[in-house]
């Protein structure tokens, strides 16, 4: 029994796809959480990922978010290869440490036993290291392109993936509980703000203007998610439904191209569920977002999805429009068990 033979046919790729996942496999020890998952999300689509508990939905989310490195396979986001097996990754630390060590070595050779001169060269090497290491940590764009030109590839870190346009919410709410609703959204805007520590300490006009503007924008995200007037409430004091809304507002603040929603209506009453469903629809029409949704509530899934992918025990068992999925015998079997014969 080969996995590929059983998997449903993949949607054909187009150059405009937001996300393309190629044969993603993830093993945790002996357990195969994901097996050869092919997955394509067209731009401005709402795609749902469903499946019974333990099917690998959240694992797949975490792989896309860069939190869990896949055992094999690769992920492209808006045409950029972000996650793939590493190539020549050992070369990178060498690039950091070779220049300072070289300077030190030259220093030792040149100064001919004069310990003070050696110390001076050592200081120079140290200075070089304090320039290189923070750069390597920040990974600015020019550094990344330089690294790629050397043929080095290592997967993007979760924060880099956010930079490339993925925002997400969590199945079990993970707000910053000791911060206000507004501050939670402001954390989401982290990458969009530019002010440096020096600006902040000196409280430059630029910094203050940016903070002011950021607060206005953050309040707008809160309003969009239906949290008007809740700005200064601590996240932990918000009612459950509002915490879910705040998760969405915070993810929107990352200004994503692709929004990953992990069970956004879990634990909500039918009225709230309806509101969230309407909100998701508006995110596409008003903000032009692409949405990948994990959801257990079939009314939500069937109501707003363009396409649905069904996972079961780490395999993609079906893919299609809501109508097709509703009638798919493998899906019915996965959810209800084999009918007695």
């Amino acid at each position, binding site marked *: 029994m080969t996995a590929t033979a059983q998997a449903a046919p993949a949607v054909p790729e187009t150059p405009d796809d937001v996300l393309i996942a190629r044969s993603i496999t993830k093993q945790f020890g002996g357990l195969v959480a994901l097996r050869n998952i092919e997955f394509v999300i067209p731009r401005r689509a709402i795609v749902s990922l469903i499946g019974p508990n333990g099917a690998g939905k959240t694992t797949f989310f975490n792989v896309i*978010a860069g*939190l869990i490195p896949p055992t094999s396979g690769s992920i492209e986001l808006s045409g950029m290869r972000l996650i793939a097996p590493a190539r020549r990754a050992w070369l990178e630390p060498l690039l950091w440490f070779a220049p300072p060590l070289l300077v030190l070595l030259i220093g030792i050779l040149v100064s001919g036993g004069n310990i003070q001169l050696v110390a001076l060269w050592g200081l120079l090497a140290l200075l070089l290291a*304090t320039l290189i*290491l*923070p750069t390597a*940590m*920040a990974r600015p764009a020019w550094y990344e392109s330089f690294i790629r030109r050397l043929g080095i590839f290592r997967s993007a*870190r*979760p*924060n880099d993936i*956010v*930079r490339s346009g993925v925002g*997400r919410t*969590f199945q079990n709410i*993970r*707000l*910053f*509980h*000791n*911060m206000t609703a507004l*501050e939670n959204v*402001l*954390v*989401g805007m*982290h*990458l969009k*703000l530019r*002010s440096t*520590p020096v600006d*902040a*300490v000196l*409280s430059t006009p630029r*910094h203050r203007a940016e*903070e002011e503007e*950021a607060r206005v924008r953050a309040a707008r995200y809160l309003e969009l998610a239906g949290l008007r007037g809740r700005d200064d409430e601590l996240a*932990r004091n918000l009612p459950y439904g509002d915490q879910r809304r705040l998760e969405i507002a*915070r*993810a929107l*603040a*990352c200004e994503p191209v692709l929004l990953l929603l992990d069970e956004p209506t879990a634990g909500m009453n039918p009225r709230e569920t309806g509101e969230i469903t309407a909100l998701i629809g508006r995110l596409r029409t008003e903000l032009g977002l692409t949405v990948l949704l994990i959801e257990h509530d079939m009314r939500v899934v069937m109501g707003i999805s363009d396409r649905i992918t069904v996972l079961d025990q780490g395999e993609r068992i079906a893919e299609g429009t809501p109508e097709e999925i509703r009638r798919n015998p493998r899906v019915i079997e996965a959810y209800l068990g084999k009918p007695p014969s």
Partner: protein
Amino acid sequence: MTFRILRLALIAAGALVISWLLMIGLTWLGTRSESFSNVVATGTAQYFSALTIGAIYALIALGYTMVYGIIELINFAHGDVFMVGAFVAYLIFTSLGFGGAIKSIPLLIGILLLGFLVTMVVLGVLGAAIERFAYRPLRNAPRLAPLITAIGVSFILQNVVQVLISNSPVPSPQLVSLEYRFTLLGASVPLLNLLIFLVAVVLMIALQVFVGGTRLGRAMRSTAQDREAAQLMGVNINATIAITFFIGSALAGAAGLIYGLYKGNIVFNLGFDAGLKAFTAAVLGGIGNTVGAALGGFAIGFIEVAAVTTGLSRWQEALVFSVLILVLVFRPAGILGQQIGERA
């Protein structure tokens, strides 16, 4: 936000006045026979030295509390980072040729500013480097491993200073002459004491503003609360943790410089004692809480000096730690409780 700052300022002013009265009262207890005006004068003088010592502890305690808040590590090397700060300031001042009091006021201010700037930057880099090489590789290791590493770093720093600079106490330049004094309620207080207190307060307010209302401050708080979620909101957690170490160590460097100015004498193992007391201060105030750390620092400075004025100077250490135990029995999370580091 403004309301919170105003409230904090009011509380701080109240605490300052009450502790002043308390110190005068304790002085009266210690020297009952003296006249009232003498008691007030002595109490006031002692109060200002309590503020100075407290300011040093508070600045060190901030580093402990910030690091604990963000990665739950008790950074035992922090006391020695403070010690290195004292020696870096010593090297800066002596290499510029200043071995004693500077007479010209503009020159004095210039040299002090330069000293603070260079010491804080050098120490910040040292702190970030310690994090990069000693703690980051162990970030996901069992809690005990980085703790032992921290103790190791502490000994390494001591050893390096011992070998490179001196094995015995060195006289650190007292740039601010003790002849500059002001008189208050009959007490003649060196201006240096007030200066130290003010510098510390300015640094603490700057830290509060930074942590409370800036992009990087929010990144720090979010990383402290949920590292993974912060990362998935685009926060570069490695950079954030490095910045935390940078700031904490820079503050310890400032404290080291102040210590040298105040005591006039530094030695390679001075970080051990001061570090432990500052750590105590951080726990007392509520570890992970920056306001608490400042409060705890001043509290410990106060207790130490109060022990002297009441004639219990030989019981100084026992008193400090008895208060710690008492506070923790009734408030296990410290006076103000955890704030930054509190996990969801």
